């Protein structure tokens, strides 16, 4: 290996390790460290899928994605709040919250996604009475004069509340600057996603995932730089191309798969070329207008330029066609549905998406997981069989 190549590999490894250390930082030490650099600095935690982080940024606060504890938290108190048929994410979130491990957050936003996350917002109000807790009602009516108007009022309310915490007023100019910062992040993430789509061997699934997750802990500017550096170096690293199939993954937009599951997919012979992991990090696909009314830009971004999601009403009735087009655009050989157990939105959505694939002749397989799944052998066999079948017989 040449010195340059070795240096590239070493730097990639360092970036990956940095991202993994942020992933492992369940006590939010990095957030506390960021806050310690300025007295008015505040951190606002948010749950999946999407909140307009630009507003938090414009108020001078750090948006922190709270994605549960995966398989790294022993659930002691969390289970005592939820019945066995509730998904796992809220258990670990409660475990971390009541254990004081989210104390670095000064407030919490709970976007509308499902009844569990919705109720969790009220539980936080009761369990953490000193903290700012707000349920973000994202519009399901996509008419600018109706849903757009309501959403703008909702965003302005959040801006006022967080601004009161930080002492920083969210002016239009500040918000435009934040839109620009997140636009740069969107550009960087698109580069990463396209690298995965075009040359998945350059960006292992695990690295890709950890980079997405790092964006939920780091200031956006730092994350953008990290992603850009990774993509540039990955293109030079000369990683070998494996005889893997190309798959799209759906169902993992809220409760996240454990890292072991991601490793398993790749080891089973699957390059994940399209997915819905950490969906909120790239929920708005297009750059937002930074010259006009920034509130309008955010509203338009959500209502007309955001990715499809099970929690978002498919008003235009294009769910099937959009999904099939996306799978084809990303040149996926097949689709893996992996939804968390007891996830109503994902599991109710799944039959509709499967029907679309059946009609289009695109193969798929499905299994469930929970964020603390620890045994992957069965999944490896299933994904491996799926990969082998596609390699041998293609779509036949």
């Amino acid at each position: 290996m040449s010195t340059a190549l070795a240096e590239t590999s070493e730097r990639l490894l360092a970036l990956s390790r940095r991202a993994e250390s942020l992933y492992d930082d369940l006590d939010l030490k990095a957030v506390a460290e960021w806050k310690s650099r300025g007295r008015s600095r505040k951190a606002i935690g948010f749950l999946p899928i999407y909140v307009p982080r630009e507003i938090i940024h414009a108020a001078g606060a750090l948006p922190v994605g709270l994605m549960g504890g995966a398989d790294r938290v022993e659930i002691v108190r969390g289970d005592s709040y939820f019945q066995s048929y509730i998904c796992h994410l809220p258990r670990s979130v409660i475990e971390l919250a009541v254990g004081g491990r989210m104390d670095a957050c000064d407030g919490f936003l709970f976007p509308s996604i499902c009844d569990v996350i919705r109720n969790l917002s009220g539980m936080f109000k009761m369990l953490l009475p000193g903290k700012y807790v707000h349920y973000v009602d994202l519009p399901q009516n996509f008419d600018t004069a109706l849903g757009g108007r309501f959403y703008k009022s909702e965003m302005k309310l959040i801006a006022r509340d967080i601004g009161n915490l930080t002492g920083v007023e969210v002016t239009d100019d500040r918000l435009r600057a934040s839109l620009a910062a997140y636009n740069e992040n969107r550009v960087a993430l698109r580069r990463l996603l396209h690298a995965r789509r075009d040359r998945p061997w350059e960006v292992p699934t695990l690295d890709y995932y950890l980079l997405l997750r790092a964006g939920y802990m780091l200031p956006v500017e730092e994350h953008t730089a990290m992603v850009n550096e990774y993509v540039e170096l990955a293109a030079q690293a000369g990683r070998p191309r494996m005889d893997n199939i190309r798959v799209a993954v759906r169902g993992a937009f809220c409760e996240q798969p454990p890292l072991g599951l991601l490793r398993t997919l790749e080891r089973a012979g699957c390059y994940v070329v399209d997915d819905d992991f950490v969906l909120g990090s790239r929920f708005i696909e297009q750059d937002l207008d930074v010259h006009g009314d920034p509130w309008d830009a955010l509203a338009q971004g959500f209502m007309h330029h955001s990715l499809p999601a099970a929690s978002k009403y498919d008003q235009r009735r294009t769910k099937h066609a959009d999904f099939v087009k996306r799978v084809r655009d990303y040149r996926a050989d097949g689709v893996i549905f992996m939804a968390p157990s007891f996830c109503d939105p994902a599991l109710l959505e799944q039959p509709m998406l499967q029907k679309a694939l059946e009609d289009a002749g695109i193969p798929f397989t499905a299994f469930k997981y929970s964020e603390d799944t620890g045994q992957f052998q069965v999944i490896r066999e299933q994904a491996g069989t799926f990969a082998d079948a596609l390699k041998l017989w293609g779509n036949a």
Partner: protein
Amino acid sequence: MKGATAEKDASMQKQKEMIAHHFSELARVKETRKKVVYTFVPGNLTELINHFGMLPVLPEINALQSGMRGKSAEYISIAEKAGHSEDVCTYVKTDIGMLRAGNIGPTGEPLPKPDLLLLSYTGCFTFLKWFELLREEYDCPVVMLHVPYQGDGEITQEMREYVSNQIRDVVIPEFERVSGVKYDPDRMKEQLQLSVRAEDDLVWVLNSARARPSPIDAWFGGVYYIGPMFTSFRGTQDAVDYYTMLREEVQDRLDQKLGPVTPDGPMREEKYRLVIEGPPNWTSFREFWRMFADEGAVIVASSYTKVGGLYDRGFRHNPDDPLGTMADYCMGCYTNLNFPQRTALLESYINDFSADGFLINSVKSCNSFSAGQLLILRELEKRTGRPGGFIESDLVDPRYFSAANIKNRLESYFQMIEARRKGATS
């Protein structure tokens, strides 16, 4: 139910006739050319649907009736074989299975297909997916009425405008288009005046449970009492007549200091007064009720009977502001309240109705109700000092109704109340 009971409850007969007439109307839509709207119970726009001469069909009611008729297991199985997960809401699966099995209603005749799906999703995210699934089966328009959640425990002016503007700009124009009938504010005002009259009487009936003994069971019996109000009849003279009749019957029981009518006739002795959170189980409804009635346990207040409106906390439709009042109604339903509101409401029921304790029936299918109920349990015990109990079942999946297990838990719970009483008097 025993003959004596059926004879006594003329209101029940009246309700049966109303329902039979409604299903008869549904069966005749081909000849009458009336349009059919499928919609949901919480935050329903019944007056508006009736205003346009359309007939509502409520898939949740279809599902619970399937559960009571012993059909839901078969329907759920059909849906699961078609690829629906065992993890998800069994109302949805029962409805999908029923559809695949011919959509046969309780009268034995097929229900008509919808001319419109009104997705007024109040307090339940599953509604969203439910109608996305149904529209795959029917070639008809869908109207989404997004009802914001009371996340901060209040209805803001912005929320109110959002909902009423959607009703004005989206729902009513689509209703006019589908039905061919023009919206008439004066006629709507008259309908809402009828709503208020019925609402007043329903509240009176619910509040009668403050008496000792309570003349009603506000959960098992309550689901019958809320029927006309929460389904197809609010804003009609039939509903007014039903509630007038019901009120007179309950007044009669109050005057005679009689307890509620149970599946085995009037309850003799009221031993335990309970508040309950959550929906009932429908597949073993009578058996479930008997577990309480046999022990002399009466439900004096319940949250489930508020999924179609918190009338007992003062809400009434305002005939002078039809669109605004419909918005308030939608946002004020129980499952649209946040957790602190729900907890405070239950606390007030426990105190106002002099309950000995409270129970949670946690149903697997309904995350809107169930997620976090254990926190409510703890909080209520802390605030009221009265014992809380927790049982688990499901709405319409008989696999999740374990009679022996529930009976054991209830017996233990009643013993706990007795022990507290003895402790208090010793």
